[in-house]
């Protein structure tokens, strides 16, 4: 479903290469996890896939359901089904959470030639999903992520994901900053969305999250490349021994 081939990407300004020939395929219905040391390029990969400016793809490709996404604008990628849960969700003063979410849902529907969701239905669906994530109605009224705690921001990302129903969900350290209960809520939210026509790419540093969201495949990313791919047991190995052995092995 999401196919990344030999992807090379550099910082536009400094010309520094961050992704150095990354290859990865997320099949529909599967959950892939990426682990890797700080600075290995995990967030960069997620940004390059979502279309953030400031990076230049110098080689390779990324397709979603056979469609090249690298040439698309961020909003076109979103409409095509790419969703990124940010490592650091952005605060936007003055833009209401609900207005934003409804605009986003309907903009995507419009881009896909689907009918827009009316206000009443939207409200009902949001309330239901927010409740499941333990996000209170008061929070939804506030501006986007303003005054949200770290954990609340992460839950809000999952709420957006649930509303937008993407085809591929990229979660960048969604577990960081979450307490045990919130982690469970987020994991339940993600698990509820697992379906045969949706893929997940879960970036994390901790095995903990993967206890709740059990991955099908685990990749180890070091210095802009995948150096090892395996099953859930690979995450346990990292948890126990760190990356040193794996890096040594690959060298």
């Amino acid at each position, binding site marked *: 479903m999401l196919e990344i081939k030999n992807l090379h990407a550099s910082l536009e300004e400094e010309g520094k290469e961050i992704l150095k020939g990354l290859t990865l395929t997320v099949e529909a219905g599967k959950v892939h996890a990426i682990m890797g040391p700080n600075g290995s390029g995990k967030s960069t990969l997620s940004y390059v896939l*979502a*279309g*953030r*400016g400031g990076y230049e793809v110098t080689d390779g490709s990324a397709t979603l359901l056979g469609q090249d996404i690298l040439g698309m*604008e*961020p*909003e076109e*990628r*979103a*409409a095509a089904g790419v*969703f*990124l849960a*940010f490592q650091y*969700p*952005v*605060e*936007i*003063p*003055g*833009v209401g959470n609900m*207005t*934003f*979410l409804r*605009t*986003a*849902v309907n*903009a*995507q529907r419009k*881009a896909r030639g689907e009918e827009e969701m009316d206000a009443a239905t939207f409200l009902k669906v949001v309330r239901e999903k927010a409740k499941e994530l333990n996000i209170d109605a008061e929070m939804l009224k506030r*501006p*986007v992520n303003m005054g949200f705690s770290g954990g609340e921001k992460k839950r809000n990302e999952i709420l*957006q994901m649930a509303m*937008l129903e993407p085809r591929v969900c990229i979660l960048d350290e969604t577990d960081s900053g979450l307490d045990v209960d919130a982690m469970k809520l987020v994991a339940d939210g993600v698990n509820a969305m697992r379906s045969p026509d949706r893929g997940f790419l879960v970036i994390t540093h901790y095995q903990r999250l993967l206890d709740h969201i059990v991955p099908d495949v685990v990749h180890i990313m070091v210095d802009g490349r995948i150096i090892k791919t395996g099953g859930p047991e690979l995450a346990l190995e990292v948890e126990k021994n760190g990356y040193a052995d794996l890096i040594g092995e690959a060298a």
Partner: protein
Amino acid sequence: MALPQAKLTATEVRLAALCLPSAPGWTRLAREAALARVRAMGMPGRRDEYWRFTDPADFVSAEPVPATHHARQKIPVFDGMDRVKLVFVDGVFDATASDDPALAGVEITRLAEAQGQDIHWAADLYGTLEARGQEPVDRPLAALNTAFATDGFLIRATGRAEKPVNLIYRHESDTSDAILHHVIKIEPGADLTVLENGPSAARFNKVMEVEIADGGAFHHVRVQGRDHDRRAATHIFARLGRESAFKSFTMTANGALTRNECVIELTGDDGVAHVAGACVGDGADFHHDDTVFVTHDAERCESRQVFKKVLKNGATGVFQGKILVQPGAQKTDGYQISQSLLLDGDSQFLAKPELEIYADDVACSHGSTSGAIDETALFYLRSRGVPRAEAVDMMVLSFIAEAVEEIESEEIREEIVERLAQWLARHRG
């Protein structure tokens, strides 16, 4: 002190093009005094301290720069509201287009008709607040207005007005040069809302003097829009009594040259004065200037100045705002913020924020910023599927929000936001 020759000449040229009304009635003395002030101050020039950022030449010229009037295609703002309409066309009152000015709790009289009548409260006020406002900064265009105003309204609120008074300024002639002067008095405990809208004239000079007695409240919402060539110099002079409130908001879109001055004096304890503005300008032919002067001369008063400017394609925004706290004005709470959002590198924002404080127990803050769209936030919105142009508009509206929130009426606030959104949608790219 003799005026420099250039100022003297400019003043004579301007005055030669004007004449005092033939039957000024009780306004005669005020007009003559104002004319003397004009001669003493001279017309504004580029070298004057508060005209460095804005060139007054088009306000000072004998004839106005012609302004093409745009045929009205949209429904005017405030149209859906229950209000008393008072309509001017190129500065000339249009009785047939206006409502009957009978309104419970409010006396409304035309200046041009009142000059022969004996209206004490107005005679005491006309030109008085303007004259007070000449210290410490000269405002010669306002004095010129007091001397030569052809019409305006004298509005006295004695109770709670049941609906707003809407002053509408239509523009039809390409060369109209309108001078209007309103005098408003809010008696103790009375409450009035005044709305203003319309492109006015090719050149518009307007003064509004507002006296708010103890416990009175005055709300003002103004929309200046549409005609690109319009040039307007407006002044509000407000004096507030004890526990009174003054709240004014102005939205400006388009207009080659706008200078809105607001001079507020808090003279009674526990008064509240808020003045806010949001302007959106597109193109090098847009120049908008807010010049505000708030004087605290009583205890525990609160003042807020909130000005937001969105500028693109070479537009210019100016903010000059001052809070003056007089000796003895303890527990003053003064706040001032002026911000601009520059949507490109060609636009500019010039700001002169000032604080002058002579009391020791006060809380005053001011801030002025100028910035571009936050790219991180923009990407966040787009990554959720919101198209770029729409995302930019959302961020612009969020930038303006703090100013718009100064409008108390939710109905009006929503209408203003809607108008701003429409303007932004028309001016994408």
